[in-house]
């Protein structure tokens, strides 16, 4: 880097180094470890540009404003133009965006930590809400007597589905963190909080699809001498599964985009490690969008956009899966 303008004073030296990401030390070290014979030679090396140079390259920084208002000074611009003319500034697909955790530097920040946080949260959410919701739906639809009490439960489940998510976040904060002392900022707590939100959605979907199983199938099973339990487990529940599953996926897709409750249980923390288990601190994709959108650097605008695209792609895939499950496996009743 310094060879671009040898013999220059220390101040300019510092300005040159600012043009690349501070990761350059590690990048040089990696290259040397891979090729020990490069030591003492002059070789070309790819370095990650700093986010400011990146923005200059993309034309997002106007050059005609006074130097003291610019993040890139005249000297750096001059060097940039020289490098650009020589064809030494390359744009490459940013793989590290998907493999790196969050960072304070826009050019280094990635979604690996928040993506894994989201995956773990959704898995925890599924593990908690699906069994409880399906069993609750089966009980209410197939076994519970119809009386004032079960009517009351039904009304409450429907109301629960309409409760603002931030209230569930406060519940998670107050109960899971304060009372049960679960580790804060983790997908475990996030997942359990989200499962409270998903629960009513799945119960309602599962009840609707249980109700859609024609009574004649239940009668057929009962008339051949199946008990209530056998009728439910052998016939009604398997037949209702496609509807239940697609309802579950839609419920999870809702949970996927949920931000407010996660902020309250502390999943808004700056996490620069990739979580390996649900009890490691993590962010989640929507919270990552929230965190980045608060950052001042211009580079984070692009990070936010990319993160939104990943989240939307995830959502589209899940809703598609729900549709496919429904259409492929649902039985048609003539």
């Amino acid at each position, binding site marked *: 880097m310094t060879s671009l303008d040898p013999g220059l004073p220390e101040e300019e030296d510092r300005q040159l180094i600012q043009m690349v990401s501070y990761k350059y030390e590690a990048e040089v070290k990696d290259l040397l470890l891979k090729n020990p014979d490069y030591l003492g030679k002059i070789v070309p090396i790819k370095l990650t540009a700093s986010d400011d140079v990146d923005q200059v390259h993309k034309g997002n920084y106007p050059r005609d404003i006074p130097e003291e208002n610019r993040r890139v000074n005249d000297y750096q611009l001059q060097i940039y133009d020289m490098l650009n003319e020589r064809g030494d500034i390359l744009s490459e697909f940013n793989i590290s965006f998907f493999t790196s955790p969050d960072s304070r530097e826009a050019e280094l920040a990635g979604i690996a930590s928040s993506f894994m946080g989201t995956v773990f949260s959704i898995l925890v959410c599924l593990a908690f809400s699906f069994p409880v919701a399906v069993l609750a739906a089966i009980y209410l639809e197939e076994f519970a007597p119809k009386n004032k009490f079960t009517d009351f439960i039904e009304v409450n489940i429907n109301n629960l589905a309409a409760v603002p998510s931030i209230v569930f976040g406060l519940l998670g904060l107050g109960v899971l963190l304060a009372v049960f002392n679960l580790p804060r900022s983790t997908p475990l707590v996030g997942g359990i909080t989200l499962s409270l939100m998903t629960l009513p959605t799945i119960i309602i979907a599962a009840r609707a699809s249980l109700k859609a199983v024609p009574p004649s199938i239940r*009668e057929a099973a009962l008339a*051949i*001498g*199946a*008990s209530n339990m056998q009728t439910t487990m052998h016939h009604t529940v398997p037949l209702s599964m496609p509807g239940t599953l697609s309802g579950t996926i839609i419920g999870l897709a809702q949970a996927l985009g949920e931000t407010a409750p996660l902020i309250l249980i502390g999943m808004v923390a700056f996490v620069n490690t990739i979580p390996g288990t649900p009890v490691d601190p993590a962010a989640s994709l929507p919270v990552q969008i929230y965190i980045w959108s608060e950052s001042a650097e211009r580079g984070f605008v692009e990070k936010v956009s990319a993160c939104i695209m990943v989240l939307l792609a995830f959502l589209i895939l899940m809703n598609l899966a729900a549709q496919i499950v429904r259409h492929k496996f649902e039985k048609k009743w003539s």
Partner: protein
Amino acid sequence: MSKIKAENVNVYYGSKQALFDVSIDIAEKEVTALIGPSGCGKSTFLRCLNRMNDVIEICRVEGSIKMDNLELNSRKLDVVRLRENVGMVFQKPNPFPKTIYENVAYGPTIHGIAQSKEEMDQIVETSLKKAALWNEVKDRLDEIGTGLSGGQQQRLCIARAISVSPEVILMDEPCSALDPIATAQIEELIDDLKKEVTIVIVTHSMSQAARVSQKTGFFHLGKLIEFGPTDKIFKNPDNQQTQDYITGRFG
């Protein structure tokens, strides 16, 4: 010989009474037809015989129904055992959305009747043969039962009902959703089955009752108006209402 003896059966749906003091003797290995206009309680009575009314929460059955001296209308009765002995065929064919084989094998499976795969194959084959369906489906037992034609579906339901060798089969308008050819096949089947089982059939078709049954009961407004040999009911009924219904003057 009497198989089922019902005495003073009253049925209520909530506060509405659907059956009034019905007493009837159903003879063994005969076909008993129950006729009457819609809503007269004949299906309600049929469903008392295998306790299918239990499914309806607001339904209450009073009186005594004895099958081989076993009180059916008792809380202590094992309903699962009863329904193994008293099969039922419904108005609309309702095979499970599973394979033909699974449809027939389901009853024997849950009651643990077959000890081995071979025995199960044998039960399925025998049941389908008795239901006069074997020749049509023997090459496609792994196809979905709901893919059969209406008449075939109904015979599949009959095969399913006889797979657990019941002593009684209840049929609730089994031919009302079928065309005349399929109806004729089912009627022939009923004729064959009565050598081994007692059959109670609810029907809207007077000619069907006349063709298949030995005894006929006429229901009207929840009451059993007249019960006797089919010949007598159709040719020389005692009751004026029966006479009017048979001759098509009302109903």
